[in-house]
């Protein structure tokens, strides 16, 4: 039995965070160093949290499965980071950023969280500039901005197509400073495999040393999970090869509610799949949609070269259907429409790809102008596909990209397990049913730099600064369970490889819990996933042992968790009898084929409590909208 208390403070929306900061407990500096905090994950959220908590004087241990904390997948974010600076004098404001984010999330996010995110967005930019992040500049020396998918103002800060890298290296540098000062200790090549609870509170973790294979126990007074999203559940996604849901999932099984798992974002501008052996999908920054025009041939199954298709035989379907936003409609709308035209057989050569054409931009600003703005993306495209995008229009297709769903957290980013905080993509909190472009980086850094340092104090203020002993029975028990699980996987010795099962799960999910879902498909897929899970536990083959580097074993554990998560995603999608944001149910659409929300019945966060294998209990956190009017999202 869990209790969902969102702890959203009272008062005016714009004053909630300020008042809450004042009302929270503070710990005196001498006591802070008596508290140990474990952070799992070293991406934007984890690294920034480690830096800031270290600055405050807490003793921080940070864990990553990478060889270096700098490799976390935040590094691959290309486009940019939003902030309500209004440097462009184009009527931007905290309110507008808040409103865009709430609306972009199709009114399925928390007002208070989203406001706070917009509020601290400006501090993030200042923070990063001070760290020496080389953001793009105007000739006059001021920070440059560009507009980004779904926004009508120019509020995105960027560093070429490598914004994520620069922001992560900024957080990494601040964290390194704390390592230098002795406040933070880094544990690389460790995989989180379970949380240890003492008297119901999170008090430590079990991590596998990926080099020696040893299961190590670590204790602390609080645990912070910043382990990213679960989109690799689809096998092919834009996530990194090692991105996984294991940390979040194992915590979920220990009592943390999982919220809105069906809100998965499929990114519209990715490179199309080239074959069965493909290992991952590559994202092209959606900033490309600012100057590129998306089209398909009007005739189904047209196999002509794009240059041979005259203007009047092309269907610029986004511009046609959404004249106001055109190619800049939100991600879910762009993705779904690409799927539709391809399902109609109008995809390039009848396949699964659409054109992203820069001919107009070449005429307007010249090839040099385009190169200036998107040079590295064009190079990347040419490198991967072997086709020169300056000569032939790019081909794109949507790919799984970002999980809005995640572990349920309250306003203080604490899960339903006391002492277990969840930051960044791993939590569900700020993006509702859909995330706008350039706001993932914003959320990760907001959680790490500006929220957790306050809310952590509020929690630890109620705890005694006493060391937790790793020799306690709870640790031993958790370690034993993990070990048994590993041994079980190793002992199956069946016939199927881990990847082949993962691929099959991916196909099931992208087909039935992807860009569009329906009741029949969801019911089917739940059974199919259960069967596949059964197959995994009876027929998977994992070579080698657990005593040294064994990457297959690492993957096997992750796939085992994906096989459970996949089922919950389908269950959640089936429960939500409406279309909202990235969750599109075929049964619930308007006559024009737009998403049809059901605010009466589904204006809630669906938080699932794990009961036993294949069984969950649904809890609902009702969403209050006091400051925005629930409007039908329209990008016409």
């Amino acid at each position, binding site marked *: 039995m869990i209790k969902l208390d969102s702890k959203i403070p009272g008062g005016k929306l714009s004053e909630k965070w300020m008042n809450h900061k004042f009302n929270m407990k503070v710990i005196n500096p001498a006591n802070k160093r008596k508290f140990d905090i474990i952070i799992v994950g070293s991406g934007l959220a984890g690294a920034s949290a480690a830096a800031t908590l270290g600055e405050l004087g807490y003793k921080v241990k940070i864990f990553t499965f990478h060889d270096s904390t700098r490799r976390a997948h935040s590094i691959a974010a290309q486009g940019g980071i939003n902030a309500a600076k209004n440097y462009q004098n184009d009527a931007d404001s905290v309110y507008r950023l808040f409103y865009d984010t709430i609306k972009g999330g199709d009114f399925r996010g928390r007002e208070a969280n989203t406001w706070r995110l917009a509020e601290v967005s400006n501090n993030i930019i200042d923070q990063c500039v001070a*760290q020496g992040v080389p953001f793009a500049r105007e000739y*006059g020396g001021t920070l440059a901005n560009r507009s980004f998918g779904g926004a009508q103002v120019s509020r995105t800060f960027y560093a070429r197509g490598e914004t994520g890298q620069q922001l992560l290296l900024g957080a990494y540098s601040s964290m390194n400073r704390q*390592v230098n000062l002795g406040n933070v200790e880094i544990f690389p090549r460790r995989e989180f495999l379970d949380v240890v609870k003492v008297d119901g509170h999170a008090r430590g973790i079990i991590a596998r040393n990926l080099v020696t294979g040893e299961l190590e126990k670590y204790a602390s007074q609080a645990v912070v999970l910043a382990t990213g999203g679960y989109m690799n559940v689809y096998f092919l996604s834009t996530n990194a090869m090692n991105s996984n849901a294991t940390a979040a999932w194992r915590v979920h099984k220990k009592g943390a509610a999982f919220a809105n798992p069906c809100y998965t974002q499929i990114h519209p501008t990715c490179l199309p799949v080239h074959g069965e052996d493909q290992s991952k999908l590559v994202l092209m920054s959606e900033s490309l949609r600012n100057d590129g025009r998306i089209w398909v041939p009007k005739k189904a199954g047209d196999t002509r070269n794009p240059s041979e298709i005259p203007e009047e035989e092309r269907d610029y379907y986004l511009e046609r259907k959404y004249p106001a936003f055109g190619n800049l409609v939100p991600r879910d709308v762009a993705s779904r429409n690409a799927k539709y035209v391809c399902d109609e057989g109008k995809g390039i050569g009848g396949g699964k790809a659409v054109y992203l054409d820069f001919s107009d931009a070449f005429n307007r600003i010249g090839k040099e102008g385009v190169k200036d703005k998107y040079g590295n993306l064009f190079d990347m495209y040419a490198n991967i596909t072997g086709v020169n995008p300056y000569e032939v229009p790019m081909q794109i297709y949507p790919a799984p990209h970002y999980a809005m769903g995640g572990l349920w957290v309250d306003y203080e980013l604490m899960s339903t397990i006391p002492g277990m905080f969840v930051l960044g993509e791993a939590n569900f909190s700020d993006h509702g049913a859909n995330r706008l472009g350039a706001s993932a980086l914003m959320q990760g850094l907001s959680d790490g730099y500006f929220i957790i340092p306050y809310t952590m104090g509020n929690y630890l203020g109620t705890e005694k600064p006493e060391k937790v002993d790793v020799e306690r029975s709870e640790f031993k028990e958790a370690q034993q369970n993990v070990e048994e699980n590993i041994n079980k996987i190793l002992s199956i010795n069946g016939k199927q*490889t881990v990847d082949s099962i993962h691929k099959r799960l991916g196909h099931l999910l992208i087909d039935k819990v992807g860009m569009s879902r329906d009741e029949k498909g969801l019911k089917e897929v739940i059974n199919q996933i259960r069967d596949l899970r059964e197959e995994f536990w009876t027929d998977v083959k994992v070579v080698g042992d657990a005593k040294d580097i064994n990457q297959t074993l690492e993957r096997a554990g992750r796939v085992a968790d994906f096989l459970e998560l996949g089922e919950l995603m389908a269950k959640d999608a089936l429960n939500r009898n409406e279309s909202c944001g990235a969750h599109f149910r075929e049964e619930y659409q308007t006559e024009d084929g737009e998403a049809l929300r059901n605010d009466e019945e589904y204006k809630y966060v669906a938080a699932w409590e794990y009961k036993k294998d294949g069984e969950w209990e649904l809890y609902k956190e009702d969403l209050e909208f006091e400051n925005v009017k629930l409007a039908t999202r329209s990008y016409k």
Partner: protein
Amino acid sequence: MSEKNINLTLNIWRQESPEAKGYFEKFEKEISPDASILEVLDEINNRLEFEGKEPIAFESDCREGICGACGLVINGQPHGPLPKTATCQLHMRNFKDGDTLYIEPFRATAFKILKDLIVDRSGFDKIQVAGGFVSFNTGSAPDGNVILISKEMADQALDAAECIGCGACVAACKNSSAMLFVGAKVSQFALLPQGQPERYERVQAMVKVMDENLFGSCTNTYACEAECPKGISVLNIARMNRDYFMAKLKTGTNE
């Protein structure tokens, strides 16, 4: 996109542990020219696993050329023959039918081989911990536009900051020197106003740890620049040299 498949002979380095003796294992393989070299390894591994044999251990993560996790030496060149390209972005269309490839880990005393193609690059992190940062506490930053930085300076700083920390510079260098890596980080901060207060302490601290971690000395062959997947310029090394010299002249600290 796809053309005819090609046949390759791959000799891949296998080494069970840091202490074990390594050897090349030979694989004959028909592959799609659209596959990346890491996808070829994936396929080989899938087959090995299916046959109950230990797959080849290698590192990779983002497969978009930015995380710096991957890094193989292909026919003597870190990240393979294509300039400014990380291993994960190296597609098989760059090879011809019948080619023979030798795939090895990065080799340097500072990069211990852990297993097969995986090496330990933690020396890089130690260098960064020594000084690769600007000292200030969260929350104390002034408005971003208070610090004006010319576009040219910002661009140059970003040119240096683009380093993905893969270690190809060390792997390419006949001396296993890490100076391109360190030079890039030193330069990023040396070029920006934010980095000025600690400019000379930083370069001394980072060079000291670099030297302690068994990296060799630079002899200006510039193999690092040629093999860098991000094309980081050796001008950054010159800047570091200059700053280091100036630091020793100017400061009295860091004995």
